């Protein structure tokens, strides 16, 4: 009697192995593709351009407001801190590139100073965020 009962249970049990396979593959996919992008905390008006490329590894985002204030990871920072922040970010993900999200009316001098600091921090691939014309 006991034996028959256990056999019945075995029959009705759902085989979850294929589901587990899928779940593990999804898990690995999301772990690999996740890059913890730190938002700048501001949304400046990006300049409109005709040709812009996507920056798939643009994990270091630095925002510049119209008045020249620098934002990183939802807080305003001084120019002298940019290098340190970039070094911390590259320690987390070494292959990241930097994107400076400068306002249309931000002073060029601040943007160039940030680029110098980012380069000193060890990131060579620097670009300035833009918006495609007509979008």
């Amino acid at each position, binding site marked *: 009697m006991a034996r028959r009962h256990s056999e019945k249970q075995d029959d009705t049990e759902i085989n979850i192995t294929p589901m587990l396979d899928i779940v593990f593959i999804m898990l690995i996919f999301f772990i690999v593709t996740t890059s913890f992008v730190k938002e700048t905390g501001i949304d400046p008006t990006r300049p409109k351009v005709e040709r812009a490329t996507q920056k*798939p590894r643009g994990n270091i985002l630095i925002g510049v407001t119209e008045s020249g204030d620098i934002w990183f990871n939802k807080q305003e920072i001084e120019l002298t801190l940019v290098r340190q922040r970039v070094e911390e970010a590259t320690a987390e993900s070494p292959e990241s590139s930097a994107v400076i999200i400068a306002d249309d*009316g931000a002073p*060029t001098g601040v943007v160039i100073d940030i680029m110098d600091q980012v380069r000193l921090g060890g990131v060579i691939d620097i670009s300035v965020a833009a918006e495609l014309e007509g979008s």
Partner: protein
Amino acid sequence: MKRRIHSNEEEAEINITPMLDVVFILLIFFIVTTSFVKELGVDLSRPSNEPPKDVEVSEVIAIKIDRTGTITIKSRETDIRAVRANIESALAVKPDASVVVAAHREADAGILVRVVDQARVAGAQRVSLAALATP
């Protein structure tokens, strides 16, 4: 004998339910935190602090942006819409020329980005920034 093996197998089976719980929580965490939004950007390259390479003056198309945002190409004031045509005609004469954009520190970053974009659209292979000494 057969029966003993069977009962042994049943005892040795590992309970995978807690592991499944953890895996699902991880999966949900990574799904929620993943962001696939990537910034659009224009690459800006700025010469580093290395000693400058000797570039023949004739091979450089110099674009100057002054404090108010006025664009000057070859000592002639130009509108942003005419930048592309100007660079194209200059490149037709000197196909290997590189474009150097020198912007005033207080000029709008948007104008700089647009000028670099127009230079790229015009077909310039090398576009670089130069610091304009503040008078």
